[in-house]
């Protein structure tokens, strides 16, 4: 029977095919007192070896060398002598094979988390190894990405970073998850690969493997009960649409030539190189041959400088920072780069900052507020940006995260201008800043709205919270109202106001944002072409009409419906 499941559309596009579920982690049975330690040990080691062999085989088949190397390293970990030692100690202490593996992985997981930074990211490798090895011991289906031997729609509770490494874009047509929110890993991955995705979609995990569905990643709808014929037709049309997409060229503009700068969100100069080359990493895995290598952005709207700081016990040195910023300033199209100063704090702890723990870090010392305690970190960063700009002969735009009051804006602007930085701005992520956007612009040259955090604080909903995903939907009218107020303040002051949250990557919402009056949209590379197409298909008057409709809607679903073309 036909049924429509609704969730949050986080990556636009249509797809249709049969669903296959990712097997969840195997549940551990109640611990059994091991009767024969030697047998438990040999079973545990056999399971780890089988896991290592399976990962090594996947590494061989990996679609690209990056994925292959990650899998190879993971297979290496499954054979790690340190892991074997822990398993043996656990078995000798009386654990059965499954619990010995579980406890050993947990032990090493903690050690990696303590190392912090990108070392901590390997903790998920251990989860994967644990799940696979325990499944082998218990004789349960191997968890991980299914492999039905034909393209399919992947269904999961949620996707962990380690799951996504194995995703073959030639085989996965769309992503559907029961949990997750607009900023979840699934959402980010899906947009980066231009895969249609619906998250927080209740009931999707209950679909039987092999069920035909169609997916609308913009509306957040999953239709079941369609036949193979209908699915094939939908999929054929989706591929044809995607081929046509990205046909518009040049700077972002509406159909009546109202300019809207389309900018990139990046973490380092490497991100620019990855998007600049038509023969980039994604090219071989691009079955439809869309060749979206050249994204032709008009610069960088959000350069997150955190990557330099993430894995440090000591702050990165001045020279190192200068080199990193200079590389980005030189690589960016037109030299236009908006550099965001360090966005860290107790919510995203960096060991070297030495900030005390606090009970509610999202409401505590984060973003610009860190400079209340460690002003020298920001000063060094501003010095390095100024030096990099001189070396590159560029005019960087510099903005601070989590600015809340006009006083903070004035202080930041003073410190930046003292170093010769001429374009100084702030992220609007806090409702207080949005409400006083006009006053902020007395002190600043531009504003950039971070929709993820602005949603979090406006709706009092943790941005990672799957249960509250509906409140975090960027189509919420209260969020759009705050954006409208900021844009109006920008127009009154004759200063640019952009959006650099993921909301900017939704082609339909982009028309609403333009109608509200924002002057630039910044997003990850794969979203640029669809957003450019969408703007090119709407006049400024239509964008304004869309903005009025969305602001007037009672909820995000109604807003999408009212604005939806046709």
């Amino acid at each position: 029977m036909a049924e429509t499941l609704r969730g949050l559309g986080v990556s636009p596009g249509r797809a249709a095919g049969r669903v296959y579920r990712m097997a969840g982690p195997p549940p551990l049975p109640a611990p059994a007192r091991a009767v024969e330690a030697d047998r438990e040990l040999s079973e545990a080691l056999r399971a780890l070896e089988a896991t290592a062999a399976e990962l090594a085989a996947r590494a061989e088949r990996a679609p690209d060398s990056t994925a292959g190397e990650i899998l190879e390293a993971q297979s290496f970990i499954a054979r790690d002598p340190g892991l074997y030692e822990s398993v043996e100690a656990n078995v000798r202490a009386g654990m059965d094979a499954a619990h010995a593996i579980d406890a050993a992985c947990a032990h090493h997981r903690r050690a990696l988390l303590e190392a912090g930074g990108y070392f901590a990211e390997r903790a998920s490798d251990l989860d994967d190894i644990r799940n696979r090895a325990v499944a082998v011991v218990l004789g349960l289906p191997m968890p991980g990405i299914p492999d039905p031997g034909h393209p399919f729609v992947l269904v999961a509770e949620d996707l962990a970073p380690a799951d996504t490494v194995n995703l073959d874009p030639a085989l996965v047509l769309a992503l559907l998850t029961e949990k997750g929110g607009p900023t979840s890993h699934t959402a980010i991955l899906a947009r980066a690969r231009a895969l249609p995705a619906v998250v927080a979609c209740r009931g999707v995990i209950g679909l039987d493997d092999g069920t035909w569905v169609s997916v609308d990643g913009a509306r957040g709808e999953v239709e079941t009960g369609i036949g193979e014929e209908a699915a094939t037709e939908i999929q054929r049309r989706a591929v044809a649409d995607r081929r046509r997409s990205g046909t518009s060229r040049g700077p972002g503009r509406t159909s009546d030539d109202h300019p809207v700068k389309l900018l990139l969100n990046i973490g380092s100069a490497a991100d620019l190189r990855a998007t600049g080359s038509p023969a980039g990493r994604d090219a071989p895995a691009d079955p439809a041959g869309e060749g979206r290598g050249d994204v032709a952005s008009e610069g960088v709207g959000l350069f997150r400088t955190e990557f330099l700081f993430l894995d440090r016990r000591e702050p990165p040195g001045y020279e190192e920072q200068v080199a990193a910023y200079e590389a980005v300033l030189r690589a960016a199209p037109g030299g236009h780069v908006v550099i965001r100063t360090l966005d860290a704090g107790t919510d995203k702890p960096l060991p070297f900052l030495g900030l005390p723990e606090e009970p509610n870090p999202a409401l505590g010392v984060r973003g610009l507020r860190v400079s209340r305690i460690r002003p020298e970190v920001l000063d060094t960063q501003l010095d390095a940006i100024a030096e990099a700009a001189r070396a590159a002969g560029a005019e960087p735009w510099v903005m601070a995260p989590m600015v809340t009051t006009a006083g903070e804006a004035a202080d930041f602007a003073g410190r930046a201008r003292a170093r010769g930085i001429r374009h100084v701005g702030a992220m609007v992520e806090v409702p207080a800043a949005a409400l006083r956007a006009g006053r902020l612009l007395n002190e600043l040259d531009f504003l950039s709205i971070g929709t993820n955090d602005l949603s979090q604080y406006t709706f009092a909903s943790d941005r990672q919270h799957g249960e509250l995903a509906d409140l975090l939907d960027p189509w919420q009218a209260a969020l759009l109202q705050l954006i409208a107020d900021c844009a109006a303040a920008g127009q009154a002051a004759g200063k640019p106001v952009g959006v650099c949250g993921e909301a900017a990557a939704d082609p339909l919402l982009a028309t609403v944002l333009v109608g509200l009056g924002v002057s630039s949209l910044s997003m990850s590379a794969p979203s640029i072409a669809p957003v450019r197409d969408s703007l090119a298909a709407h006049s400024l008057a239509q964008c304004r009409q869309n903005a009025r409709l969305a602001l007037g809607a009672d909820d995000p679903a109604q807003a999408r419906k009212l604005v939806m073309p046709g």
Partner: protein
Amino acid sequence: MPERTVVIASSSGLHARPAKIFVQAAAKQGVPVRIRVGDGKSVPANSMLAVLALGAVRGTEVTLDAEGPGADEALASLAELLSRDLDAEEALDG
């Protein structure tokens, strides 16, 4: 006990590809080699998990030690490996 102190040169530190190359090379030595950061605990250099947990980034000083016949040669070859930017070599590999 023979020791060698060396500064990690790879841009991703002892992580990803450099960690894998180092651990593989350590496992091939005829003697057990250990590695530590500063005054920290020495861990087996043939354990990827132990090496990752060191959290050594580019610029971190690490000390290798080994004992027995061939220890000096083993330390020399592993120290040489750590003093190269293995990430850059990957880029050259294309």
